[in-house]
């Protein structure tokens, strides 16, 4: 028995999770856990948590849960980034060693892409898409909740690797053969593959869900060409997810099998081909960068039209360009590894196809500028992010064109020039867009605005922090500094620029702190949104109260024009003047614990498989099968809200005549 205990302790807590940073994290995690447990017990909120949140299938609540998770992951990924930057500012006295540095940049990348950007996007999809198309929920509310819990437990699995067993350390791309068992023993990479597989199932289901929602759930009269641009971006993003995630699933599964079931896909011996993984990974990976950027194009299209008080310029061209970006996104994956040596023909093709994407993207940039042209621009925080996005993203795009030039890429490949480029588009594009969307839709989620003054502080710090961090990194790349090094010798002329870059990272850290303070401050002091239309909006979500009632629309509106709500306002129409006889009994999805239990069962499978403890895997697998079978036999999916009850709620919101 004692030897068993020793085995457990050694497996779960090897020396690399007993470093000071990890132990500090342990203390924080336990302390936070105790505080949450105490508060929930003290306030008697456990049942509330279970009934209202953990078992919910309401898209608005799922959106809020995604948002909370995304902000928590932004914190984790941000702390990782600060650790990396601190190390590079102090090359002669590294704070963390090479192994830990590898682990930290791996989790930084993985978390920021899969567990920050994606859930943040799904948060805004969940909150806005059904409301914008005039629907009562997404197409598959229960599957929506399953997607969330698979994501959440996947994220949990990756995050516990930090304190239990050891983190993955092969980068967010996890190239073999380094991920093979020979070079990378221990549970780290198992955590990586399993958490992404579990979260990936959820993401694929989200893609299907929103594609069908947009195709089948639109309000009467809302034809494809009358949809808001954000809905177009949700449609194209979902299509990208559906086409991009299967190759990732296959690549991750093959790598995992190489590790724990002894197959020979990407091994060095037995005829394995490591470059096959790289192809499969980027077959996913390139569409992925559009998965995280197209929604942002949609957000900015809404924000710029709303705050310029003008219809979006060149709507149909915007649609054509977003669809062409979607299609072109599949034809560029080899540009991530020009140095593989596929030959000039192949590289020229992928270089050109990459440059081709600049055309539709450039069209979009001009259309946003022309939307502002002659508009009455309101400088809200959401609009500031839009204004900052345009120059930042243009520079990021231009350096992308430089990298797409194959001969230049042979020089710039894997240098800080590349690092600066993709942070330029991912922060200047994705993060700015998501924060813009956060400020824009916050009133719809919570019924109050975020404080604009504090928001502007956070904005300017993010903006300048970003440029101070990544501007010098372009120069470092040109000076030959390669990525993924934890220290460097003196005398290369890299030190000053690295110190500046690190200062910028801390400025962004300060911006994040202000953002969080703003959220907490505004819960108490934020300007209440009583009309449901705080920005004088254009699309249907602003036609209903903030926060939206459970059923969203007491009656589904009929759409005649693009920017349906703006059109209704021009015609003097409103959804806030119902009569008692207008009310109908509504059918809504009913809460269920199945999604939460399914996510948990998958977590058990993932955890067991990470350590190759097959009894635990079997236990989790039984849980998965049992949950699915139970779900199949559960016909009690819907509940009804009686017309009288709807009337009462609407009257309480002051939206009934007389």
């Amino acid at each position: 028995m004692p030897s068993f205990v020793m085995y457990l302790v050694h497996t779960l807590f090897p020396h690399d999770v007993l470093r000071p940073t990890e132990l500090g994290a342990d203390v924080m995690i336990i302390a936070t856990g105790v505080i949450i447990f105490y508060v929930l017990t003290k306030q008697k909120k456990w049942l509330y948590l279970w009934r209202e949140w953990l078992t919910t299938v309401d898209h608005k609540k799922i959106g809020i849960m995604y948002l909370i998770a995304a902000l928590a992951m932004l914190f984790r990924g941000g702390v990782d980034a600060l650790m990396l930057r601190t190390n590079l500012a102090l090359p002669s006295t590294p704070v963390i060693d090479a192994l830990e540095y590898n682990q930290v940049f791996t989790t930084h990348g993985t978390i920021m892409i899969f567990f920050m950007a994606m859930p943040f996007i799904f948060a805004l999809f969940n909150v806005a898409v059904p409301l914008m198309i005039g629907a009562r929920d997404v197409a598959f509310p229960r599957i929506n909740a399953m997607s969330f819990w698979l994501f959440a437990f996947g994220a949990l699995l990756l995050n516990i690797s930090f304190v239990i067993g050891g983190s993955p350390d092969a980068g967010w791309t996890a190239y073999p053969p380094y991920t093979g068992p020979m070079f990378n023993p221990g549970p780290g990479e198992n955590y990586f593959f399993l958490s992404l597989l579990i979260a990936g199932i959820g993401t694929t289901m989200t893609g299907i869900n929103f594609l069908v929602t947009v195709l089948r759930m639109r309000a009467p009269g809302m034809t494809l060409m009358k949809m808001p641009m954000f809905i177009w971006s949700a449609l194209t993003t979902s299509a990208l997810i559906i086409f991009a995630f299967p190759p990732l699933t296959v690549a991750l599964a093959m790598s995992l099998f190489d590790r724990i079931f002894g197959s020979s896909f990407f091994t060095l011996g037995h005829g394995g081909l490591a470059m096959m993984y790289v192809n499969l990974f980027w077959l996913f990976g390139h569409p992925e960068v559009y998965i995280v950027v197209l929604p942002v194009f949609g957000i900015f299209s809404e924000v710029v039209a709303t705050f310029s008080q003008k219809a979006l310029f060149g709507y149909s061209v915007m649609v054509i360009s977003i669809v062409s970006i979607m299609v072109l996104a599949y034809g560029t994956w080899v540009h991530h590894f020009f140095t593989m040596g596929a030959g000039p023909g192949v590289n020229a093709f992928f270089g050109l196809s990459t440059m081709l994407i600049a055309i539709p993207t450039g069209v979009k940039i001009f259309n946003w500028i022309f939307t502002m042209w002659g508009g009455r621009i309101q400088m809200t925080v959401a609009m500031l992010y839009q204004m900052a996005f345009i120059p930042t993203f243009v520079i990021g795009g231009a350096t992308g064109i430089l990298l797409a030039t194959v001969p230049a890429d042979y020089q710039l490949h894997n240098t800080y020039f590349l690092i600066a480029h993709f942070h330029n588009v991912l922060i200047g594009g994705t993060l700015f867009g998501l924060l813009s969307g956060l400020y824009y839709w916050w009133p719809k989620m919570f019924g109050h605005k975020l404080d604009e003054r504090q928001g502007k502080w956070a904005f300017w710090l993010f903006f300048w922090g970003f440029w101070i961090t990544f501007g010098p990194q372009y120069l470092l790349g040109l000076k030959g500094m390669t990525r993924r090094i934890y220290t460097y010798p003196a005398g290369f002329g890299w030190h000053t620029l690295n110190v500046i870059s690190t200062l910028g990272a801390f400025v962004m850290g300060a911006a994040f702190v202000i953002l969080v303070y703003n959220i907490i401050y505004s819960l108490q002091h934020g300007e209440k949104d009583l009309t449901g239309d705080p920005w004088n909006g254009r699309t249907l979500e602003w036609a209903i109260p903030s926060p939206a009632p459970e059923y969203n629309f007491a009656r589904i509106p009929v759409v005649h024009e693009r920017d349906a709500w703006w059109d209704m306002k021009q015609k003097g129409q409103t959804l806030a003047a119902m009569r008692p006889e207008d009310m109908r009994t509504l059918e809504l999805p009913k809460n269920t614990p199945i999604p939460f239990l399914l996510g948990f069962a998958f977590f058990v499978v993932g955890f067991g498989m990470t350590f190759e403890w097959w009894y635990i895997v079997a236990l989790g697998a039984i849980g998965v099968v049992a949950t699915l079978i139970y779900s199949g036999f559960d016909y009690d999916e819907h509940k009804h809200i009686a017309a009288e009850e709807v009337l009462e709620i609407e009257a309480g919101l002051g939206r009934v005549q007389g």
Partner: protein
Amino acid sequence: MSLPVEDEKIIQHVPAEFSDEKESIKITGFWMFLVTDVLIFASLFSSYAVFKNQVAQGPSASQLFTLGPVILETLLLLTSSFTIGLAIYAMRKENKRALMFWLILTLLLGAGFVTAEVHDFVTFVSAGATWHKSAFLSGFYILVGTHGAHVTFGIIWAATLLFQVARRGLTAVTTRKLFTFSLYWHFLDIVWIFIFTFVYLNGKIV
């Protein structure tokens, strides 16, 4: 103030599985799921094509495969695709007994397929052709094995459907579930035709 609303419409005069708007949307969703599954198999097929000649010290495709069992598996699965078609035909005629009969027959044929395939795999492995041996074998087992796992999952799924139909009869929900199952089953049949052609025939003859 006018209200920009009208009454929500109800679809009529369509087969039972499309009769309820919410259920009909689920059929659209299932088609989208099949798209993702097509892409899973597309990734596996392309990997197999790349790995095919990476036989290392292991056997090659033509040394390994014997077409006899494969043709038996093909016959079983193709017949089951016919019987599930008959099951859906009976469902449309609202003939529950005939539906159950054809569905059970489909499952038995599917189970026969899986048994033959497992037997095939066991033979290969006992001859030393494990997937550790070569990238070719890894690619082969994961492609054909994923298909076999899909068939196995389908059998369990349809078995639960049998109970639901027996208990609840042919409603909008149960017919939708049966219909999506039939889509799934036909899809697996199509994938098998590709496996039969590009893996077994191609491996044996070319």
